[in-house]
Every structure is written in structure tokens, then in C-alpha cells.
């Protein structure tokens, strides 16, 4: 919006500022760690904030899981603390359940995974991997973080406004969302902040990638992770504005009394709604999904990038079909803009529209298959090291496989009839985002932690963390397929208990809940590991994994400006086990001996 308009111009003044500050590095703590313009500090700020939001979103869900396991029975311990407005006598109200659901979705997607995968890993790793001293617009980069931070604060604050936080699902369908309380307004304002943040970030990433590449680093020498972030940024740049538009319209409906999404003649609880009418509820859905489908690829592409890096490094060989993977990636990004209405199959589509979106949806699954297949085949002929990052990266493959494959029955209009809005959908996308993306993010943390801190994380704790997470993720989500196939709807306060047809599968809800809580416990080793290793982890040199990509040519942790001497690139990203060389890795920046 207009703020971004000004910031773009300011950003350039900033690069100036950064350049003025060039010589003297003795800045105050505040300017070094809080309002820093260094991409590494910002990346770490993004990561920590993102992780904390993930944890928070998870806690919301662990609460909900109690209600789903034991509908209507008071929540032990915590229940009393929630207050009578939310959980009188410790038993959560339907309103509160809906709040938790909507906020879990919003927080996990917009405040957890995207900031961690794009804001965190993108900011920290991408400039290093392309051999840049920093992002193209450091001050804009800082603003992007603080816009995100503001958005997060607004979202959290919304829990405490009268009527509580948004409770119409993360999809905020009108009219429901417009009849909802002031929490929804907060949600919209928060989203505007988050969108602004993502747009600033995307502009920065794209400019940085094309402009600040090291000498010799052609696009075909990019690590797959850089490609992934590049495509992701385009998705953010072009898909988010329509949601911003939708948000503005819904704000107008809520604050100025317009009825963009309200048709004429609504009667709410017996009272005729006093609005001009003439709006269209489907308009919101179209604008929302026009963002939200590309958004789900924003959630997965960086994850694929991370996994590719780690697999190449731990198989000690080049990736199979690197170019195919890149072409698939670009095609995937492109297609993700023309499948949005597969989320709206049940809104009353005619045959043309339905056929169109089914077809695009089937087409878009092919590049994913191609990427996954390449990653799997890359294992063949490797000399595989089962490090903690590798374990998570390997687990990503079948987990994403399950999530992706179950997308297919949802993508066919007729098979979507029994499955739409059931727990099958919940299971589908959690397999891609939770044991999929979250595992990839864990892998990335274990992999780049030494670069960020100069210390290794504990392998032992890492393996414990992996085992627990792997087992319990599946224990949470596998049963949901059964519940969904039995026809039980999502977003049910009692998990389906009030329906006869749901009775045979209700016990699975309890299994999922136990899984979720156990999953929570198995995160403890990770948190300990994470905090402990920062101070006491084994010290390492700049290239502990013996990797080939540029970030490992910089000191760990890299100084302000990253590289001691501007790196130059001589070869592709994954030159492992090149025949006839002493070492089994051939760094991109190593000059070929004559």
C-alpha cells in the first residue's frame, strides 16, 4: 500500500545509510541485534519469532485436542486459567474452540512457517549462497521483519478484545466473518501487516537474487534452495495483493457498512439484516483462494529446497535431474495460480469450470511428482550419511508423498464430494505441512545451525527428537484419514460426537490427541538442544559438512559483510565425489588447479 510506496524509495536512502556506516562497526546493542539491517541478524530474528509462533500455534492445538478427545469435559490444570469467557469451569465453549481453530491455522501458516521458511532461512541462507554481502535493500529488510512483528502482535492482541479473536476459520468466509466480533477486524489488520511484510520481503529477495549474484554464479549454477526461494518470492509478490484487496473490501464491509460480500435479503437470527446488499460471498472465496493456493506452495517450495541441499550433501553426489527439478519448480509456481477453485468444488460449479480446475489440479501434481522422484532417485549410488538433518530430510519424502498423493482424490471433483471439508482434508494438508514442511525446517535448522552459531547441535538429542517427532506425527494424522473417510466434518466443536454416523470412528480422535501431546513432549529435546548448543555445542570450522555451496565458504558465523574476500563461482552447486579428486567435494568457489 502507500506505506510500501514510500518505503521503496526510502530503502534506497538506507542502502546509502548502510554504506555511510561502512567503516565503523561499533554500534550499540540495540542497533546490532534489534534494529539491525544485517540479513543474518534479521534472518535469526525471523527464525526465533517464527519458531515461537509455531510453538504457540501448536499449544492452541493441544488445547483443542483435549476438547476433541473428551468433548465437554473440563481441561485439566490449564482449563481454569482460561477465564469464564472462554472456558467456564474449565470446559471450552464452542466460540473459543472456533477461535483456537482459526488462530491455529492463521498462526501456523502466516506467522509460523512462512516467516521461518522464507523470512528466516531465505534471509540467512540465500545471500550467503549467492555470495552477496547482504540483501539489496537492508533497511527494507528490517522493515519487513518489523511489519511481520506488528502483525503478530495484533493477532495475539486479538485474543483479548471483547468477543475474542477471529473465529470464522483461517479462511474467514463471508458472511460469517462479517457477522463475527471485533476479533475479525483485528485479524484483517494483522493480515494487512503480514502481507506488507511478505511483499517487502519478496521484492528484496528477487532483487538480491538477480543483482547480487557472485561473479560466475549463473542461474544454472544456483543451488536448488535459491531457485526455490526465487520462485516462492514471485508467488508472494503476485498472489498476496489480491488477498490484500479482499481484506480491504471486508474491512469496508465491517467498518463502513458496505456489502461487497453480503447478498440482499439476509435474515440473521430472525432479524432482517440492515445492509444495502447486492454483494457476493463467492467473491471473497475467489480472492482468498487466489492467494491461498499459491500460498500452500509458498509453504512447500522452500522445504523442498532445504531437503534438496541436505540430500545432495549427505549422499555425497550430485542431485539426479537438477534441471528437470528446476523446470518443474518454475512450472509449479506458474500453475499454482490457476488451480485455486479446487477449494471451491462444492460451491456449485458448472461442468466447464469444474473440468477446467480439475484438469489444472491434476497437471500441477506432475511437477511435484517429478521433483520428489528426482530427490528419491538421487539416493541411488550415494554414500549415505545418516546425520540428523538427513534423517529429517529423508522422512520428508514419504511424508510429503502421503500428503501429496491424498491431494489427488481431493483434486477430482466427484471424489471430493465425500471428502470435502472432512478430516481427510485436514490429514491431507497436515501431511504436507507438518511432517512435510516442519520436518524440512527442522532439517534446515540442524543443517545451518553451525553456520549461524559456529557450533554443532547435539546429534544424540537430534536423533531422539527425530524418532519422537516421526512416530507421533503419524500417530496424530494417520487416524484423521480414517475419520475423514467415515465422513466426519472438520471444525466440529465435539469432533463429531453428536452424529450417529461418526460414532464408529470417534475413538480415533483420542488416538490423535495422545499423539499430539506426545509430539509436544518430543519437542523438548529439540528446545534443549537448540538453546544448549548455542553456548556449549562443539565448535566447528567454516565447512563442517564438507559442502560445496557458497555459504560454507564464509566464516561461521559470517561477519558483517559475510565474505572475507568476494567469492567467485567456477562450477555447479553439487559437485560431490567428482572422479579423480582427493576430496569427495568440489566447492563452487574453488579455482580449478591448472
Amino acid at each position: 500500500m502507500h506505506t510500501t510506496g514510500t518505503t521503496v524509495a526510502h530503502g534506497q536512502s538506507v542502502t546509502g545509510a548502510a554504506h555511510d556506516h561502512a567503516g565503523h562497526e561499533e554500534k550499540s546493542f540495540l542497533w546490532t541485534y534489534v534494529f539491525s539491517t544485517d540479513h543474518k541478524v534479521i534472518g535469526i530474528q525471523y527464525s526465533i519469532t517464527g519458531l515461537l509462533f509455531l510453538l504457540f500455534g501448536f499449544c492452541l492445538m493441544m488445547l483443542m485436542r483435549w476438547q476433541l478427545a473428551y468433548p465437554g469435559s473440563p481441561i485439566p490444570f490449564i482449563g481454569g486459567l482460561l477465564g469464564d469467557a472462554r472456558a467456564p469451569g474449565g470446559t471450552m465453549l464452542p466460540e473459543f474452540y472456533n477461535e483456537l481453530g482459526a488462530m491455529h491455522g492463521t498462526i501456523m501458516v502466516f506467522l509460523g512457517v512462512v516467516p521461518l521458511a522464507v523470512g528466516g532461512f531465505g534471509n540467512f541462507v540465500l545471500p550467503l549462497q549467492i555470495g552477496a554481502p547482504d540483501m539489496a535493500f537492508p533497511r527494507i529488510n528490517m522493515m519487513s521483519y518489523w511489519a511481520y512483528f506488528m502483525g503478530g502482535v495484533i493477532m495475539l492482541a486479538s485474543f483479548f478484545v471483547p468477543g475474542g479473536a477471529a473465529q470464522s476459520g483461517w479462511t474467514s468466509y463471508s458472511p460469517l466473518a462479517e457477522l463475527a466480533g471485533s476479533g475479525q477486524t483485528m485479524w484483517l489488520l494483522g493480515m494487512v501487516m503480514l502481507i506488507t511484510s511478505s511483499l517487502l520481503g519478496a521484492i528484496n529477495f528477487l532483487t538480491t537474487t538477480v543483482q547480487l549474484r557472485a561473479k560466475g554464479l549463473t542461474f544454472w549454477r544456483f543451488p536448488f534452495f535459491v531457485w526455490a526461494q526465487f520462485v516462492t518470492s514471485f508467488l508472494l509478490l503476485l498472489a498476496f495483493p489480491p488477498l490484500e484487496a479482499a481484506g480491504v473490501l471486508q474491512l469496508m464491509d465491517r467498518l463502513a457498512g458496505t456489502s461487497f460480500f453480503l447478498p440482499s435479503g439476509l435474515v440473521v437470527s430472525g432479524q432482517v439484516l440492515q445492509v444495502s446488499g447486492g454483494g457476493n460471498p463467492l467473491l471473497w472465496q475467489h480472492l482468498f483462494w487466489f492467494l491461498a493456493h499459491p500460498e500452500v506452495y509458498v509453504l512447500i517450495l522452500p522445504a523442498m529446497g532445504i531437503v534438496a541441499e541436505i540430500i545432495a550433501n549427505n549422499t555425497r553426489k550430485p542431485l539426479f535431474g537438477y534441471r528437470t527439478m528446476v523446470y518443474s519448480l518454475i512450472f509449479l509456481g506458474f500453475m499454482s495460480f490457476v488451480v485455486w477453485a479446487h477449494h471451491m468444488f462444492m460451491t456449485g460449479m458448472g461442468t466447464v469450470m469444474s473440468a477446467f480446475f480439475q484438469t489444472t489440479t491434476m497437471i500441477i501434481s506432475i511437477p511435484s511428482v517429478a521433483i520428489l522422484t528426482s530427490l528419491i532417485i538421487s539416493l541411488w549410488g550415494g554414500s549415505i550419511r545418516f546425520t540428523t538433518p538427513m534423517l529429517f530430510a529423508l522422512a520428508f519424502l514419504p511424508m510429503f508423498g502421503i500428503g501429496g498423493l491424498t491431494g489427488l482424490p481431493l483434486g477430482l471433483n466427484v471424489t471430493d464430494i465425500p471428502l470435502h471439508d472432512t478430516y481427510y482434508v485436514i490429514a491431507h494438508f497436515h501431511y504436507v505441512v507438518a511432517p512435510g514442511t516442519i520436518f524440512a525446517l527442522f532439517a534446515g535448522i540442524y543443517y545451518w545451525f553451525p553456520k549461524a552459531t559456529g557450533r554443532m547441535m547435539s546429534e544424540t538429542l537430534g536423533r531422539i527428537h527425530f524418532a519422537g517427532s516421526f512416530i507421533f506425527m503419524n500417530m496424530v494424522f494417520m487416524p484423521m484419514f480414517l475419520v475423514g473417510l467415515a465422513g466426519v466434518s472438520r471444525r466440529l466443536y465435539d469432533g463429531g460426537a453428536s452424529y450417529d454416523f461418526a460414532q464408529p470412528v470417534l475413538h480415533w480422535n483420542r488416538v490423535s490427541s495422545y499423539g499430539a501431546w506426545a509430539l509436544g513432549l518430543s519437542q523438548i529435546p529439540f528446545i534443549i538442544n537448540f538453546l544448549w548448543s548455542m553456548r556449549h555445542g562443539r565448535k566447528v570450522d567454516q565447512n563442517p559438512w564438507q559442502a560445496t555451496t557458497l555459504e560454507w565458504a564464509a566464516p561461521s558465523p559470517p561477519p558483517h559483510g559475510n565474505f572475507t574476500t568476494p567469492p567467485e563461482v567456477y562450477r555447479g552447486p553439487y559437485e560431490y565425489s567428482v572422479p579423480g579428486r582427493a576430496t569427495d567435494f568440489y566447492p563452487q568457489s574453488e579455482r580449478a588447479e591448472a
Partner: protein
Amino acid sequence: MEIPYTVSVRQDTGLNNGKIGIWLFLASEVMLFGALFASYVLLRTGATTWPRGASILNVPMATFNTIVLITSSVTMVMAWASLARNQFGRFRLYMGATILLGGVFLTVKYFEYTAKFHHELFPRTNTFLAIYFTLTGLHMLHVIGGMAVNAWFWGPGAKLWKTNPTWFTNRVENSGLFWHFVDLVWIFLFPILYLL
């Protein structure tokens, strides 16, 4: 530590960072107004009745405003040209004119709005007015934003001209790109809302 290609252009792309940045930003703006435009079409084609803009809105005023914005676009580009020709004095003049014209635009809009409110015509009155106020309002925010940037370059920001003229010129060009875009949006809003 210096960010490369802030001022100079990179050989293979032939561009500096700011130029790419501003165009990417404008790309996102295209999508923003594109979505709003799509919403307008959807609501209008779905409506049982839809007033011709002229029957409610004040076409002469809007015509005047169109002329004002176009003129401001010219002064803007002239401001950049003056810098390119190394005439800082003229730049001040043209840039000042651009900002003033922006002010004129806002004033006229102010009178248009108050006139509507005076006749009990509010966003909530009907879908046409809803979309009218939303689109013009959002556009107005862009005008204000553009004016703010220009004011900065007219005033304090101009210091840069002494230390790094090329850079200053590029940045004026970029803020110009934004200003022209705002003008471009209006060129479409005008017929869509007032004439059809």
C-alpha cells in the same frame, strides 16, 4: 560494507537495484488494483441495476482532476529530466509543481467527497458508491504516499544531490515511476467510475 549496484548498473541485467525493486513493487500494485477491478466487474455484472456514474458523480470535477494528474505526471518526468540535464534549480521547480498538483487533486477530491456525504450518499448506500469510495479512497492513499516521497526528495532528501548526483537522479526517477503508476491507475478509474 557497500551493497553493489545501488548506483551503478550491473552488466548482465543492465539495471541498478532500485529500478528492479520499484518495478517489482509496481507489479504487486498491478495485482492489487487488478483484483479490485475484477471485483468491480463481478459485482456490476451480478447486479440487477447499476447507475451510470455520471448520474451520481460530478464528471466535470473528475475531468479537471484527470487533467491535473496528467499534468503532474509531466512535471514529474520533467523534474527527472532537469536532474539528468544537471539543472537542480529547475528540478526544484518541477518537483514543487508536482507536489502542488497532487495537493490540488486531493482538494478537489475533498470537495467531491463532502458533496456526496452532504447528499446522504455514503459507501453503505449502495454497491456502486461502495466500490466508488473504496477505489478512489485507495487511490487517494497512493497519491498521498507519492506526495510524501516527492516532498522528501524536494526537501531533506535533496542533500544527496551534492554527494551523489547520479544516485539522486535514479531515486527521483523511481519515485517518478510510482507517481506515473498512480496517474495510470486514475486514467482507468476515471472512465470506469464516472463515465460508464
